[in-house]
């Protein structure tokens, strides 16, 4: 069992999300940074989509009631096990009774916006509609359909054979190093603060915006406002307008869709977004870059970079290749160190 000692706020159990219930009104939920979740799971010898804890607010602390292999991926922060510093993206052994702390002494995230705690065997909450992810609006899934609170006890899953065999003492090159944004965006090196560049595929109403708005869309360093969460990122920047007002009909939407309410700046739908919407859509942040967005904190700036369907597929392939490499190397290191 894992005991939540300091839950912070909005810490939830997440896997890849609930994939085939949108037609019943159920949003997918799922980890905001799915690459951090997947890579961490592979490091644990878990299936790619095992459930872990998404930690968006520090400090956060858990006590382990059993010996467990653990890793912390995603955003960088100060990680300590019984006061001893730990490397992120690294496989560690936690002993029964030890306390893992993220962001002790008031240290926030050094970079990024969400850390993930993965344990060998995964966090074992009941599967609801094919997923262990917390559906906050529907109040189901995850741990009792809600964010974690102090004193919650979570079961760690049954050890898979791969994770039994392997031992600790190795780690991963994080995606931010393996999949640099410089591959598709040349940032101004003197620019401060840093801008997160994400690739966007234009959507149905793109051409219905006026030319000035289209230019502004691509050329603005949009600020992620404080009104940004797992549901959506509200951006601050210039208002975008359409050539003519369009009739809007509710239709299915996916995480990444950039909606533009009348006269307003854009809102990017994130993992807890409802599965339908009706605002005009400028574009969609491609699935392969949603993890970058997940790690862009409120107050930081983002830039949209235009891509094509082929370019977006290639980006997905790069992410899959990274995970395939991890999947291939982790058992080798496990065997070496055994």
């Amino acid at each position, binding site marked *: 069992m894992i005991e939540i000692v300091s839950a912070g706020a909005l810490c939830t159990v997440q896997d890849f999300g609930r994939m085939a219930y949108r037609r*019943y009104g159920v949003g997918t939920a799922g980890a905001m940074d799915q690459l951090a979740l997947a890579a961490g799971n592979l490091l644990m010898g878990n299936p790619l989509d095992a459930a872990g804890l998404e930690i968006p607010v520090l400090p956060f602390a858990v006590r382990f009631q059993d010996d467990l292999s653990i890793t912390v991926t995603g955003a960088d922060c100060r990680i300590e096990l019984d006061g001893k510093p730990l490397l992120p993206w690294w496989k560690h052994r936690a002993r029964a009774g030890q306390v893992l702390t993220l962001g002790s002494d008031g240290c926030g995230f050094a970079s990024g916006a969400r850390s993930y705690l993965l344990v060998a065997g995964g966090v074992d909450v009941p599967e609801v509609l094919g997923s262990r992810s917390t559906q906050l609006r*529907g109040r189901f899934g995850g741990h009792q359909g809600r964010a974690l609170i102090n004193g919650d006890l979570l079961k760690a899953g049954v050890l898979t054979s791969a994770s039994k065999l392997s031992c600790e003492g190795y780690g991963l090159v994080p995606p931010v190093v393996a999949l640099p944004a410089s591959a598709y965006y040349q940032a101004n090196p003197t620019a401060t603060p840093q801008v997160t560049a994400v690739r966007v595929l234009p959507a149905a109403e793109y051409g219905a915006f006026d030319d000035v708005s289209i230019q502004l869309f691509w050329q603005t360093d949009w600020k992620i406002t404080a009104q940004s969460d797992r549901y959506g990122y509200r951006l601050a920047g210039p208002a975008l307008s359409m050539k003519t007002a369009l009739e809007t*009909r509710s*239709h*299915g939407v996916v995480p990444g869709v950039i909606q533009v309410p009348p006269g307003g700046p854009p809102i990017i739908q994130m993992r807890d977004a409802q599965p339908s919407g009706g605002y005009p859509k400028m574009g*969609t942040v491609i699935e392969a870059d949603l993890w970058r967005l997940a790690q862009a904190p409120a107050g930081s700036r983002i830039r949209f970079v235009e891509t094509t369907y082929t370019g977006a597929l290639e980006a997905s392939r790069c992410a899959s290749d990274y995970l395939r490499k991890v999947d291939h190397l982790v058992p080798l290191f496990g065997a070496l160190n055994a």
Partner: protein
Amino acid sequence: MTAAPLHPEVPRISLLGTSALLFEAPGPLDIGQQRRIWALASLTQGWPHIQEAVPGMNNLMLVFSTPPENLAPMQAALQTAWDDTNRMENDGHAPGRTVELPVVYGGAAGPHIADVVAYTKLTVDEIVRIHTEPLYVVYALGSHPGYCYLGGMDPRIATPRRKVPVVNLPGGSVSIGGIQTGVSASDGPSGWSTIGRTDMSFFDAQCIPPAVLAPGDRVRFTVQRIDR
């Protein structure tokens, strides 16, 4: 680049990144087109690359399990399937069930009915009569688990969305937003005006399917009580 016409003559197919494709039926919002959307949803649900077919209001989102390398064959197949739905025999027997929902109108159950009165210049009794008259059709589910988009509201009681959304509207709230009406299936934020309350439970995550109502079902609101 020209703006899209209000009601394009041909279906429009667009991309939602590499996650999904959106098919939008041509013409004004209409139940005949919606029946074709339901048919198209069941035709496409089993296609390769398709994880889920999600009907909207006269449109259909096809979510990819894995995005196809080449979109052209899927787009062509979609167009053919759409044409096929037009040729399907209409046997005159509409599918789906009819569900009666007793509603407590006004009072604490319908805190915004005064706003609908103020906007429409109708009395509470007239609003309730007009709201309970039609047999509403469930066009699609969306927004939140179990929520139904209903078609068929009388435009005389249409009321614009609220300027300031209500932060936590209780589940079961019967409300009006623009020319639509609906019942929220769980507590949550809403920009619609609440005129009443029903006890019906629309969603159970432990059931398959989890939603009680399905596209094509019909809903009739009945008067349980009017509170003043």
